[in-house]
């Protein structure tokens, strides 16, 4: 059992005009192994900033608060150290890496995370199985990472990594965006499969719309407004948002 704990997190970003803007204004969240938390909120409320701050993107500066993984200070770690400690971020806009094939990339990442190269025979089988489950053609493995991938292929590739790297906690940033219903189902199935894995990950599901929550059921829903959690509840909160939207929060803020 692991715990990811975020306490009073304040984060700023440097703006193009030289100014500094505070985006997260005191976020508190506790996620335990096996739990699914949905973070919902209007555009610009700071959902993605939370995701990237946990992963350690250099664009964001933590000005206060703490993030700990089983008591270890995550904010002290470099980006790759965080990943090796068990954090995973499925990105909304995965980056192209020309010249590096998916298969080479996956093997290199797995070796880095585990601290040793995976056993060739089981690894090849695991990759193939995971790709089949995500309806990814085997030719995919020889393509360059994210290069000329469609939106749906990029998201499947992110979830493929989540399944293979077996993190303790996964943050899924707008994984549903740009997916049609069929692709959404496939990707959600993939997340559910990862959730059922023996590593029993906790998941932070960041989404603007509720539609992915029809396929991945959260135990907790947090509504983000203006850089902090404005309301918390169970799955029923997502349902009420479905009907009323974010207007009532925005009016209050």
């Amino acid at each position, binding site marked *: 059992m692991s715990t990811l704990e975020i306490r009073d997190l304040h984060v700023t970003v440097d703006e193009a005009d030289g100014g500094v803007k505070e985006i997260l204004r005191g976020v508190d969240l506790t996620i335990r192994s096996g739990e699914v938390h949905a973070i919902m909120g209007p555009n610009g409320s700071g959902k993605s900033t939370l995701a990237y701050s946990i*992963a*350690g*993107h*250099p664009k964001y500066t933590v000005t206060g608060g703490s993030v700990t993984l089983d008591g270890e200070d995550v904010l002290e770690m*470099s*980006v*790759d150290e*965080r*990943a*090796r400690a068990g954090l*995973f*971020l499925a*990105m909304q806009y*995965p*980056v*192209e*890496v*020309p*010249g*590096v*094939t998916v298969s*080479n*990339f996956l093997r*290199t*990442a797995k070796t*880095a*995370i585990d601290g040793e190269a995976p056993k060739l025979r089981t690894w090849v089988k695991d990759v193939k199985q995971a790709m089949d489950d995500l309806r990814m053609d085997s030719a995919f493995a020889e393509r*360059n990472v994210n290069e000329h991938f469609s939106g749906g292929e990029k998201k499947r590739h992110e979830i493929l*990594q989540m399944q293979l*790297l077996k993190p303790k906690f996964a943050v899924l940033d707008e994984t549903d965006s740009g997916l049609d219903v069929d692709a959404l189902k496939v990707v959600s199935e993939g997340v559910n499969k990862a959730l059922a894995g023996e590593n029993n990950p906790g998941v932070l599901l960041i989404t603007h719309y509720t539609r992915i929550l029809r396929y991945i059921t959260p135990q907790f829903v947090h509504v983000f407004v203006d850089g902090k959690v404005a309301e918390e509840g169970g799955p029923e909160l997502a349902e009420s948002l479905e009907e009323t939207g974010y207007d009532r929060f925005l009016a209050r803020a």
Partner: protein
Amino acid sequence: MTAVDETRTDPAAGSPANTARAHSHGAGSVPDASRAERRTSFEVADFAVPGGREEEWKFSPLRDLAPLFAEAAGPAPAVEVRAPEGVEHRTGTPAEVGAGTGFVPGDRAAAAGWATTAEAHLVRVPAEAELDEPVVVTVRGTAGATTSGHVVVEAGHHARALVVLSHLGSGAHRGNVEVRAGDGAQLTVVSLQEWEPDAVHSGQHDVVVGRDATVRHIAVSLGGKVVRLSVNLRYAAPGGDATALGVYFADSGQHLEHRQFVDHEVPNCRSYVEYRGALQGESARAVWIGDVLIRAAAEGTETYELNRNLVLTDGARADSVPNLEIETGEIVGAGHASATGRFDDEQLFYLQARGIPEEEARRLVVRGFFASIVERIGVPEISERLMATIETELAGTPAPTTVAPSVLEENR
């Protein structure tokens, strides 16, 4: 971020036949109406000492190259030829080894090199000979001296051979190379520039492709302060297939310049040019100029040229200029592409977010970038050594800083 410039000419789409058309990405001054008009001569006096404003010199560090423009003869470079049995190799004056039949100097440095070469070298692979081992010609420059050399590589008809020219040492060197591939020959010439960090090298390689011959010229520039290599490819008869490949890695203070001119004067020939380079460190500099001319008589030509630059750190600059002149519409295809991309913070973040440490992430990207060409060299021993050298150079990478990529790269 990647800047891409891509053009493909599809004759089926109706480009007018026999109409002179030039498609150039040169910036500003274009003195010659056609690449065909560029001067060639054995007389040094026919070439003025470059002042820096000439189209073909404007990217080059003339102060460093200055010794190469002088007419004074220096010592000959130390040249060593290692060839498998059956290969003829001789040393003599240029006339004695039959130099100059497939070569005419195209600039001041090459003409001065021709005029001051006392000792030329001939490597001749007899007709129909098929070599199992490469011929290795090692050219060693001398610190503090300006050396001039001329190497003739001749492959008889239907010969199959691989010739490696290895450039080592210091000093300033004018290296003229003449490659003549007979009918049906399959010849690969690899030119390795693994100079000491203070060396300055200007080289002109003229390649003549015989009827139905297949020639590959591969330039690998890793060392030296300045390397400026001009590779000119032409065809003696129809059916020739020429490939020019290049790999370069420019460090801080290093200027690596590669120019190719493919002159399609004969029908039904094919050419393919691909150069890939990485730049790392303050003031690392790379220039790639790819000229292709399809003359009116060269019907049935198929050509493509490609340059890719990978900018690893801030402060480096890559210029990439493809020029395609087409004087006939009756061709199979012609195109070019040029792209300068940056190994940027977002790629680094993505790889690190998957647990891969920064140094390894860089290695992964650079290895992938070069692999497609390095693997085609055909000598595993050389390919492995090059990758190892590239990785050693990489290890010297300073930490990346965050500056908008738009100011770091250039693509014309």
